[in-house]
């Protein structure tokens, strides 16, 4: 294999490229010169001590926060500076550090809002004959039931999301993101506040999704789960990328051990 061919195949395998990303909040440097790639079909882990800038990176990629400088390229297009709904329309869907569900909507309605934008959602359709949107709506309801069945959660389909436990809300957020059929799923601590058994269940679902070809970038503190799920793993500290590789490689990297792994954090 020639070096040129390798470069081309690597480039096509890269779905997201973060390059020189920086973000200041007033005088505070939250992220500086962050550079890493997310390859297609992987779960890329993003780990680091508290305040390392991991969630800020997710916010910068998803458009929630504007970077001071740097670029975010997704499938070759520069998406930096776009607003969250514009970024989402490229196929990048995120979950939040605090489960962010529509509390006053049922679980099934939450999933329906997750579906990619469609014409029947306009005010013109609302004021027109019901048949202009009811067919697609029925399809989406069926899709939502399929997702619920996959997660074994049909029983809570008609519960208000605000009535659910923290762990169930996480699952609703994840299922809603899947309804969007994302090209890249950004997961910001998806296991935070979740019972160990539910965390393992979520991990199994994520592995299934990866095996089906979905690409994910995941911020997570629980290192055993990171080891189980993520390859490669990007380590951040003090706003910058410290190292990148498999967990086995990182565990033998003295700089990473000193900055994060050494204290046994998360273990």
């Amino acid at each position, binding site marked *: 294999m020639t070096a040129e061919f390798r470069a081309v195949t690597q480039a096509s395998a890269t779905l997201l490229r973060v390059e020189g990303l920086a973000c200041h909040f007033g005088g505070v440097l939250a992220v500086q010169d962050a550079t890493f790639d997310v390859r297609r079909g992987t779960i890329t882990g993003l780990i680091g001590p508290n305040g390392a800038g991991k969630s800020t990176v997710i916010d910068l990629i998803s458009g929630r926060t504007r970077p001071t400088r740097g670029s975010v390229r997704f499938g070759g297009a520069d998406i930096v500076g776009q607003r969250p709904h514009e970024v989402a329309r490229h196929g990048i869907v995120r979950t939040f550090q605090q489960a962010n569900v529509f509390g006053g909507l*049922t679980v099934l309605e939450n999933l329906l809002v997750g579906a990619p*934008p469609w014409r*029947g959602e306009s005010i013109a359709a609302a004021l027109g004959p019901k048949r202009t949107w009811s067919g697609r709506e029925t399809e989406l309801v069926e899709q939502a039931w399929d997702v619920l069945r996959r997660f074994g959660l049909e029983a809570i389909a008609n519960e208000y999301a605000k009535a659910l436990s923290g762990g169930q809300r996480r699952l609703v957020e994840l299922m809603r993101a899947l309804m969007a059929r994302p090209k890249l799923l950004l997961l910001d601590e998806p296991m935070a506040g979740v019972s160990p058994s539910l965390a393992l269940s979520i991990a199994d679902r994520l592995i299934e999704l990866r095996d089906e070809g979905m690409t994910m970038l995941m911020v997570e503190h629980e290192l055993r789960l990171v080891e189980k799920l993520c390859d490669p793993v990007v380590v951040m500290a003090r706003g910058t990328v410290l190292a990148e590789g498999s967990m086995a490689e990182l565990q033998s990297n003295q700089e990473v051990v000193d900055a994060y792994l050494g204290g046994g954090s998360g273990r």
Partner: protein
Amino acid sequence: MSGGLIFYLSGLAILLGINLIAIWGLDLQFGLAGINNFAYIVFQAAGGYAAALFALKPAKAYGSFETYIGGFNLPFPLPLIGAVAVGGLLAVPVGLIALRRLRADYQAMAMLVLSLIATGLAEAQTGLVNGPAGLALIPQPFAGVFPVSPLGYHWIFLGLTAVCCAFAWWVARGISRSPFGRLLRAVRESESAVSALGRNPYALRMTALIAGGALAGLSGGLLVEYVTAWGPSSWLYPETFLFLTALIVGGKGNLAGGALGALVVPIGIVELTRRLPAFGYPGMIDSLDWVAIGACLLAFLWFRPNGLIPERKRVFRNGSRRDDR
């Protein structure tokens, strides 16, 4: 039943219909989309002024005893259509100011300030809509067309109000049961989650503000054509809280709740306090109106925040169509 009582009751029915349109419009903004529109009364006022200015002849035709811009002498139903359009269009600058950059609590403050500015402007610019004295002699629809008694005209106007209510019901029901209505409720719950799923929450809220503003404009136009006069004292900022109280008491996010609120608050409470025997200083009864409305609002916020008829849960059966309960 005496003729006077029938006249009074038919008048109440007209006012109920006008309030119903306004409350359903507010429900689109506040109940569905979660917009704290404390300037709602301005939309009704704008519709009222639009209908008046479209229906009135130029000021000179009345010997210039009042001063205003326009005076287009348009036939029915153009003044009402103009009221709908102006109510909807007013939402655009209001939305640009209040919805774009501000969080919900600051949106409420901005709306309240806009309401105060609008009243100040209407009062101070006497050449605009005749200042604090307001507009009078506003022509009524079909006036003089049918040779009927005042009570007979009441029935005609009640019919017109019923048609406008049916239109407002069609708009509000169409939106609330549709996927668009679901998105509005989602925006109400979490703007950040809606934008993370590819929808522009600002555009959604703006659309709700326009739709609700159009219904407020319609209610204002109808009210002005019924009472034939309109001035700043008719639409002071507390009037917004009358509609908000009706919605919170009846139950926001559903048409039946809005209808019940329209019956209980602007008609029930206001008419009941008016029936009290006069006591205390002059104006005591009017003040009691607001005390009763305010107490009612606080009681419901504390003890029954979802109102008498809470928003319906949309239930989906596995493998079948939707059914509301």
